[in-house]
C-alpha cells in the first residue's frame, strides 16, 4: 500500500467534508428559521416577514447550492478512496446513507425548486409546506449522517462474517444513546449557526442605521433563539462527552490531555501537550475531583490516561485537545453575547448599545468555527481507527490507489473549492451588505413589464415605493 496516497486521501476527505459541512450546518438552521418566518407571514400578514423571507431565501439558495454540489462528492468518495471500508462496512453504512438520500436528499431537492421559483405558481399554504419540506429534508439528512457516523464511532449491532460487517440488529444501530446525544448536538449547532448569522446581519443593519423594522426582528429573534438554545446545546455537549468517556477512552484522554490514570481525576483547562515526553507544558488545571465530575458525573470515578493505552492506538493528541477547547470557547462566547443581548433587548437598550452590537455583528464565524472544531475533535480523536476499535484507517483505503491519482484529485478539489468558495462567500457577503431591499427592487423591476401576476406577490405598495425612493 502507498502511504503517501493514504495521507493524501485522508487530507482530501478531511478537506472535502470540512468544506461541505459549512453549508448544511448553515442551511439546516436557516431552513427551519425560514419556515417559521413564512408561517408568521401567513398568520400575521405583516409585509416585513415577506421582505425578510425573500432576503434570506436568496442567501439560502447560494449556500444550499454549494452544499448540494459538495455533498454529491461525499457520496462517491467512500468508494473511490476508501473502497476497503465501503466493501466491508457497506452492508451497514450503505443502507444508512441510502435512507439519507431517500428520505432527505430527494425531499430537499424536489421542493427546493418550488421554494426558489414557484411562489407565483402554488397556493400560499403549499408554499409554506414546500418550505417546511426543505427544512425537514435537511433535518432528516443530518439524522442519517449522524447515525452513520455514530456507528463508525461506536460500532454496534453487527457480526463479522468473511471479513464483512453484517448487520444483525438495526434497532441498536439506529436507536442508541450515542446517536441520540450526537444528533441533537449537531442539529442545535445548525440552529445556532442560523440564529447567529441572522442576528449578526441584523446587528450590522442597526449599526449602519438601515432597514429599521427588518433589522430589529433579525437581531431579536436571532439572539433570543440562541439565548434559549445554547444552554440546551451545552447539556447535549456534555452527553456527547459521556459517550466518548464510556466508549472511546483514547479520544477522551487526548481531549483532556490526561497522561496517567487518575482516581479521582483532575481537569486540565489549558496546556501544551508534549507528546514526545508524555507530559503537559504550561499546564493550568482544576484539582481533583473536577476531572471525574466533568467526565463521569462522579466524585470518585477513575479516568484513563494515555499511558495505559498502547501508543499505536493514540490519536494525534494535540488536534483533539486544542480543537475541543476552541469549540467550547466559541460556545461560551456565544452564550455571553446571546444572554447579554437578549437581556438588553428586553430593556430596549440593545439597539443603542454599539459596544455590544459590534461583537454581535462580528460573531458570525463563531458557530462555524465551533462546528468545524467539534468535528475535528470527533473525527481526529477517533484515529487511528475508521471504525473505532475494529478497522484501522490505514486498512480502509483502496489498496491499489496511487500517489499520482490521489494528487490529481486533491489538487483538483483544492482548486475548484477555493474558486467556488471565494465567489460563493463574496456573493453572500454582497447580498447581505445590500440588504433586504436589494431583492425587492430586482423582483419588482423584473415583474412589472412581463409578469403582472408576480407583481401582486411582490409585496405591498409601500415597500415598492420605498424601493423607488432609493432606500
Amino acid at each position, binding site marked *: 500500500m502507498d502511504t503517501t496516497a493514504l495521507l493524501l486521501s485522508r487530507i482530501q476527505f478531511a478537506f472535502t467534508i470540512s468544506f461541505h459541512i459549512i453549508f448544511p450546518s448553515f442551511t439546516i438552521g436557516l431552513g427551519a428559521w425560514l419556515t417559521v418566518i413564512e408561517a408568521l407571514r401567513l398568520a400575521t400578514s405583516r409585509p416585513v416577514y415577506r421582505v425578510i423571507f425573500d432576503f434570506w431565501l436568496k442567501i439560502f439558495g447560494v449556500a444550499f447550492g454549494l452544499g448540494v454540489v459538495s455533498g*454529491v462528492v461525499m457520496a462517491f468518495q467512500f468508494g473511490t478512496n476508501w473502497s476497503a471500508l465501503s466493501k466491508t462496512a457497506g452492508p451497514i453504512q450503505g*443502507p444508512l446513507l441510502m435512507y*439519507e438520500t*431517500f428520505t432527505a436528499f*430527494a425531499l430537499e431537492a424536489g421542493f427546493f425548486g*418550488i421554494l426558489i421559483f414557484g411562489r407565483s405558481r402554488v397556493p400560499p399554504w403549499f408554499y409554506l409546506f414546500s418550505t417546511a419540506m426543505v427544512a425537514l429534508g435537511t433535518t432528516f439528512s443530518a439524522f442519517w449522517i449522524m447515525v452513520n457516523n455514530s456507528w463508525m464511532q461506536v460500532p454496534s449491532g453487527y457480526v463479522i*462474517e468473511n471479513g464483512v460487517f453484517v448487520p444483525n440488529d438495526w434497532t441498536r444501530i439506529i436507536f442508541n444513546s450515542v446517536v441520540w446525544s450526537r444528533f441533537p448536538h449537531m442539529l442545535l449547532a445548525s440552529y445556532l449557526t442560523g440564529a447567529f448569522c441572522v442576528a449578526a446581519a441584523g446587528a450590522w443593519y442597526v449599526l449602519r442605521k438601515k432597514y429599521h423594522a427588518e433589522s430589529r426582528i433579525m437581531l431579536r429573534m436571532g439572539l433570543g433563539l440562541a439565548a434559549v438554545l445554547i444552554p440546551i446545546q451545552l447539556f447535549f455537549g456534555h452527553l456527547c462527552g459521556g459517550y466518548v468517556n464510556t466508549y472511546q477512552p483514547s479520544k477522551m484522554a487526548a481531549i483532556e490531555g490526561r497522561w496517567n490514570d487518575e482516581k479521582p481525576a483532575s481537569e486540565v483547562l489549558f496546556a501544551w501537550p508534549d507528546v514526545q515526553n508524555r507530559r503537559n507544558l504550561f499546564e493550568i488545571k482544576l484539582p481533583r475531583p473536577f476531572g471525574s465530575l466533568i467526565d463521569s458525573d462522579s466524585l470518585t470515578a477513575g479516568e484513563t490516561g494515555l499511558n495505559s493505552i498502547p501508543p499505536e492506538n493514540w490519536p494525534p493528541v494535540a488536534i483533539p485537545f486544542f480543537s475541543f477547547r476552541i469549540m467550547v470557547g466559541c460556545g461560551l462566547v456565544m452564550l455571553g453575547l446571546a444572554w447579554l443581548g437578549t437581556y438588553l433587548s428586553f430593556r430596549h437598550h440593545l439597539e443603542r448599545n454599539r459596544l455590544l452590537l459590534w461583537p454581535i455583528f462580528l460573531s458570525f464565524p463563531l458557530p462555524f468555527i465551533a462546528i468545524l472544531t467539534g468535528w475535528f475533535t470527533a473525527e481526529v480523536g477517533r484515529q487511528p481507527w475508521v471504525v473505532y476499535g475494529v478497522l484501522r484507517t490505514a486498512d480502509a483505503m*483502496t489498496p491499489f490507489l496511487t500517489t499520482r491519482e490521489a494528487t490529481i484529485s486533491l489538487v483538483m478539489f483544492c482548486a*475548484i473549492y477555493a474558486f467556488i468558495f471565494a465567489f460563493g462567500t463574496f456573493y453572500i457577503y*454582497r447580498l447581505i451588505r445590500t440588504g433586504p431591499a436589494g431583492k425587492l427592487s430586482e423582483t419588482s423591476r423584473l415583474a412589472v413589464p412581463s409578469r403582472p401576476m408576480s407583481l401582486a406577490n411582490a409585496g405591498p405598495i409601500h415597500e415598492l415605493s420605498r424601493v423607488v425612493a432609493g432606500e
Partner: protein
Amino acid sequence: MVMFWVSLLAISILLYVLLDGVDLGIGILFGWTRGEEQRRAVLSAVAPIWDGNETWLVVTGVILWAAFPVVYATLLSAFYLPLFFMLAGLILRGVAFEFRNKTQRMRWIWDLSFAGGSLIATFMQGVTVGALVEGLQVTKGQYSGGDFGWLTPFAALCGIGLCLGYALLGACWLVKKCDAEVRDRALHQIRIFAVSVLVFLVIVFAYALAEHLPILHRWIDRPYLFVFPAIGAVAAIVLALSILNQNDRWPFYTVAVIFLSAFGTLALSFWPYIIPFVVTIDEAAAPQSSLMFMFWGGVLVFPLMLLYTLISYSVFKGKVGTTGY
C-alpha cells in the same frame, strides 16, 4: 429481494440519464446560445428541476453501495479519475445556476462553467460506460488496470457519443419548454444531433465488430436482444415524423424511448453480470439483513421520491416564456 434492488437500481440509472441528461444536454447546447435573453430562457427550462434530477445520481450511488457494496467499491475505485473529473464538471455546472444571476461583469465565468462543466461531466459518464462495456481488468477480485486503464479509444468514442445523445435530449426538452427563437434553433439542432447519434451508433457497432468485444457474443447467444434496437428504430421514425409535423412534445418522448432501448440493450447484454463478465448480481448482493432493512425504504420511500419528482415537474409544466419563472 435481490431482483427488487436490481429493478430499483435500473429505474434510478434510467431516471438519472433521462432527467439529468436533459440538464447536461442543455448545458452542452448552452455554448451555442446567443444573447442574454436566449440564455435566460434556456436556463429557465431546467433551473427549478436540475437539482432534483442530479439527485438520481446520488440515489444510484447509494443503492449500489447499500445493495451491492462490492460493486460500489470496485467500480468507484477503478474509475477513480473519470469519476472525480465528472464530479468536478457537475460542481461547476451546479454552482453556475446560483452564481450567474449574482453578477453582470463575471457572468461569462459561470456561463463557461455551466457549458464546460456539463460537457466534461457527460464525456466522463460516457467514457465510464464505454470502459465498462469493453471490460474492466480485474485480477483476484481487484481492479488492476492502472490509473488510466479506462482511457481507451472505444471509451473516448462512447464519451463523444453520450455528449451527442444528451445534446439531442436537451434540444428536445428546449423544443418542449421554450418558444420563438430558442425553440426554432433547438428544432434545427434536433436534426443535427439525431443524425450524429445515428452515425455514432454505426461507428460503435463497427468498432465492436472489429475489436471482437465480448459483449457481441451475448448478441449472438441472445437474439431476442434485438427487440430493443427495433423499439429504438421505431422511436427514431416517430421522431422524424414529429419533427416534420412541427410537434413540440413528441421529440422528447421519442428520444427518451431511444435512450430507454439503448439502456435495455446494455443491461440485458450484461445480465446476469453486474460488473460485466467478472461479478454477477447474486455474488455482489449485500447480506440478507441489509436488504431486508432497506426493503421498507424501497417500498415506501422510493415511490415518494417519484412523487416529489412528479410534483415538481407538474408545478413547472408548460412553456417557460422568455422571462423565466
